[in-house]
């Protein structure tokens, strides 16, 4: 489903974010990316969203070379992916409800569907009462949960989650991981980048370990080892 083929990303001669990285992800897989800060986890996710272009190599999504897709067609790729960003990337001028609804609006979902699904997903992330609030009025953890709600509301094929539990207390962090697991069980591919050792060790799923832009370990039932 997703294939990274000899991917390198060099920002300047001294900054090598990724160095000759190759791996594949099958449909319905739950893959964790682990590594120290600056190991290249976020860059990998940015490349998959076509937010960045690789210096070398090719990335395939459903057998399609992502970086050969025309700019006008990129939205169609991005609609298949739900992304949770480290810095949330919520739309500041929209309320929590509108932020989540936006992901459905861009795929031309019907109004009834939006009215039905958004409150449901707000309920799942435990923020039903905060639907009228703007991002600036939410705590870091609440923003994180709104970002997660936005990423999953349109039932994408893949969810990319970059440190989704980074700003959450253990209770909410466990809830989010449980949510990602159940979404995965329903058939959505999950790519989780995290520092959270406890989460990784409990998951018992595939773990790809990155160090200095290189894959140093790729295990089917991996553990957090750095």
């Amino acid at each position: 489903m997703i294939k990274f083929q000899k991917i390198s990303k060099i920002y300047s001669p001294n900054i090598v974010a990724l160095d000759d990285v190759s791996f594949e992800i099958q449909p319905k897989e739950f893959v964790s990316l682990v590594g120290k800060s600056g190991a290249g986890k976020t860059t990998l996710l940015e490349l998959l969203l076509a937010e960045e272009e690789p210096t070398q190599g090719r990335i395939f999504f459903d057998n399609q070379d992502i970086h050969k897709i025309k700019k006008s067609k990129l939205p169609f790729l991005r609609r298949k992916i739900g992304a949770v960003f480290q810095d949330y990337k919520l739309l500041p001028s929209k309320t929590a409800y509108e932020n989540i609804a936006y992901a459905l609006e861009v795929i031309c979902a019907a109004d009834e569907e939006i009215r039905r699904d958004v409150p449901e997903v707000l309920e799942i992330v435990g923020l039903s009462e905060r639907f009228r609030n703007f991002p600036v009025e939410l705590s870091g953890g609440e923003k994180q949960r709104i970002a997660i709600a936005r990423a999953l509301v349109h039932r994408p094929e893949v969810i990319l989650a970059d440190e989704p539990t980074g700003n959450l207390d253990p209770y909410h962090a466990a809830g989010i991981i449980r949510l990602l697991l159940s979404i995965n069980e329903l058939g959505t591919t999950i790519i989780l980048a995290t520092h959270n050792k406890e989460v990784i060790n409990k998951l018992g799923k595939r773990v790809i370990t990155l160090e200095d832009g290189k894959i140093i370990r790729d295990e089917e039932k991996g553990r957090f080892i750095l």
Partner: protein
Amino acid sequence: MLTSLKRIIRSGWITFKRQGGFTVATIFIMVITISLMTCLFLFQRITKFSISLLQDKVDVSIYFKDTSLEQDILGIKEQIAKIPEVKSVEYVSNEEAKKRLLEKYPELTESLRETQGMLNLASLNIKAGQADQYAAIANFLEKAPFKNLIQKTDYYQRKLVIEKIFSVTSAINHTGVVLSLILVIIAFLVAFNQIRLAISNSKEEIFIQRLVGASNWFIRGPFLIQGVISGFFAALITLLIFIPLVYFLSPKMEVFFPGLNLFSYFAGNFFLIFLIQILIGIGVGVISSIIAIRKYLEL
């Protein structure tokens, strides 16, 4: 398609309402731009009025021999009126001319009585649209079959003055056009810059919208709607400012330009002026938005 359009319009309207300070600043700048354009529209009326006033003072007179009969002169008038270059021909009868002369120089009463009606002061006053057309008219008169009835034309006497007046009015016209163009460009740039600033504040938001999978039109649309709404409100505000402004200024303008009623001109062209204002407002809003947002959609 219709659903997307509805969402784009709703999103544009909601953002317009929520942006508060920026919305007010954008409308304020656009009001200045539209006001400037409206002033130019009224200014060109004043310029045209002044120019026609000045040009109306220019004419060429044909004086006839004392033996010429009034019916001959009226026949000549008809022939001259047919010349394409001629704007108007006025016949001043002998009596009328003498009356005018005496009004101006009452001391000539005695001298005129001595002529005992022998002196023929009847004339034709010819007006042309352009300075160079007077030469053509003079040329026609020199070769005309009725030239033996003509005592003299004052064209060559007045040639220099005529040319001077027309060159001044043409300079006024050209300067007005150039100044208007410069002001239009400045006004557009100021409005464009304000909208560009507003959109550059949304740079991060546009980037996020792209990452979530929004198409370029879905991102661009609400900004265009905001441009349209801002332009419409700016046009409306400008109109509401100009109605009382022109109403109170019009009598004062009439002191400087007798015969010019700016308010009746404004009222007579009310819908045209409002249409121009709306088109400028919406045009500036939409064009500026399209140009300003293009840069961020290419990211």
